[in-house]
């Protein structure tokens, strides 16, 4: 757990080790293949944590362990602990479906439901996890979430149109609004801007800063500049000699970028490889 103190220093606001998400010896497997080895990190509430590293280092696999999406793949499994508010989400009797309402996710490619309207997309998580929902209430929630995702003004006249009729950047913000609607505590973003142009990217980054007031955000990015712009803490991952991804260094973003402790981090940050 040598990585924890660094974050506490980095955040400066959690001297008591008040962390919303703590991983303990987290390993992720695909069948017998170890994809991510022994990750220990602690994430402070209302922070933005970036996970960076060269491709194939297990960034996406790791973030998918955070909301139990990893195990959806055939033969995939996770060992170790992941504490959300002190409760192990991999504990016995924990329903992965309910975990995912507390830890939302935004994916690399915008994936609104093409058969649903903009408004139905936003409330899909609510509507599809209950039998009956009041339309008026759903509309209220949709408006609130679209405003939160800075999308309301652009789509308020096309709420009944298909979710896929929006532009790429709008679709991604729609997906963020959709994730917000189930009121998660943590939002995971898996390279959310890699399919978007620079302007759409900028909008999403601005949005992340706003959202961090109410949510905790973990973002995977292959873009170091983005990590530097948006995040409070940065985790650097790399593939080890055994081809398993591991956490090389984890600390405040400023420290990682200006004064990395590990040689490998320094090499990556300075563009020697990756």
């Amino acid at each position: 757990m040598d990585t924890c103190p660094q974050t506490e220093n980095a955040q400066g606001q959690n001297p008591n080790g008040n962390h919303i998400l703590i991983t303990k010896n987290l390993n992720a497997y695909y069948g017998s293949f170890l994809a991510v080895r022994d990750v220990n990190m602690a994430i402070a509430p209302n922070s933005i944590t970036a996970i960076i590293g060269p491709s194939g280092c297990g960034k996406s696999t790791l973030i998918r362990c955070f909301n139990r999406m990893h195990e959806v793949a055939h033969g995939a499994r996770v060992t170790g602990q992941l504490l959300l508010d002190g409760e192990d989400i991999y504990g016995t009797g924990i329903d992965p479906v309910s975990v995912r309402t507390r830890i939302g996710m935004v994916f690399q490619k915008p994936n609104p439901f093409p058969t649903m309207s903009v408004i139905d997309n936003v409330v899909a998580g609510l509507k599809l996890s209950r039998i009956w929902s009041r339309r008026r209430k759903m509309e209220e929630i949709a408006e609130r979430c679209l405003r939160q995702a800075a999308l309301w003004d652009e789509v308020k006249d096309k709420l009944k149109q298909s979710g896929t009729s929006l532009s790429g950047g709008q679709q991604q913000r729609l997906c963020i609004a959709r994730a917000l609607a189930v009121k998660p505590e943590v939002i995971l973003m898996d390279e959310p801007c890699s399919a978007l142009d620079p302007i759409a990217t900028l909008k999403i980054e601005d949005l992340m800063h706003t959202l961090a007031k109410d949510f905790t955000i973990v973002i995977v990015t292959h873009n170091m500049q983005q990590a530097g712009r948006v995040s409070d803490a940065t985790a650097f991952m790399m593939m080890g000699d055994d081809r398993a991804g591991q956490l090389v260094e984890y600390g405040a973003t400023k420290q990682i970028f200006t004064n990395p402790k590990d040689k490998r981090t320094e090499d990556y940050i300075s563009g020697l490889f990756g």
Partner: protein
Amino acid sequence: MLGALTLIIRKGFNFMMVSLCVLGAVLAMTLVCMMLGYILVHGITFFNLDFITNEAAFPIGTPGGGMRNEIIGTAIIVSLGTLIAVPVGLFAGIFLSEFASPTVASSVRFAADILSGVPSIVVGIFAYAIIVRPMHSFSAISAAVALAIIMLPVVARTTEESMRLVPGSLREAALALGITRWRSVLSVVIPGAMTGIVTGVILGMARIAGETAPLLFTAFGSNFSFESLSEPIAALPLQIYRYAMSPYQDWLQQAWAGAFLLAMMVLVVSLAVRFISRKRGS
């Protein structure tokens, strides 16, 4: 460097293969056009309103006879067969696409492919053995079951195929919102695959509407209007077969008209399917 002779041989071989391909395509097109044209020319002269609204006229030769009973009979057994095949095929397709492990899926898929390859007369014998024999009567219900067995793999496989076309990212999106697996299949995957599923059902219906062999010893045919599902029932393809085999001019004409009706039905269905899938494309 290639010799001049080699070059000529290569060009000649290329030309020959391309010609063979063109020839094959032309032949296929010609056959369809000829068959449809032949049925059209022969059938349309004998096809009229009486043919749809009247029963067979007796004695043979009386004008104004039709195939009302047969059309109704076919409508009944095809609807009933569809009613049986669609739910089973739908669930099988959903299972194959969403829930089966790769090994289980491949064996179920193999079974479905075998089933669709079973000659339809064998399906008829099977329905005869399990339904007609115990009930001691030819019946509409046995015909419907035989047709349902033929339709089942069509529905199951098209359902599976069209659900597989729905991107996995949408399933992930639903799961990540805390939606259960089944609910995401129901509300995200199936709506996305709907046009494909409907297309499969319509194609399956077109397929069984024209089946004759399995009806020989299940529906059996009847000269009377429909009364009960447990009695023999008239069917269009069956009647075409009987009339076409007969020596009477009048019946032969009726057979042409029936063939025309059946062919038009399949044609219209195919066009409708094309229309539906094109709408999805846009």
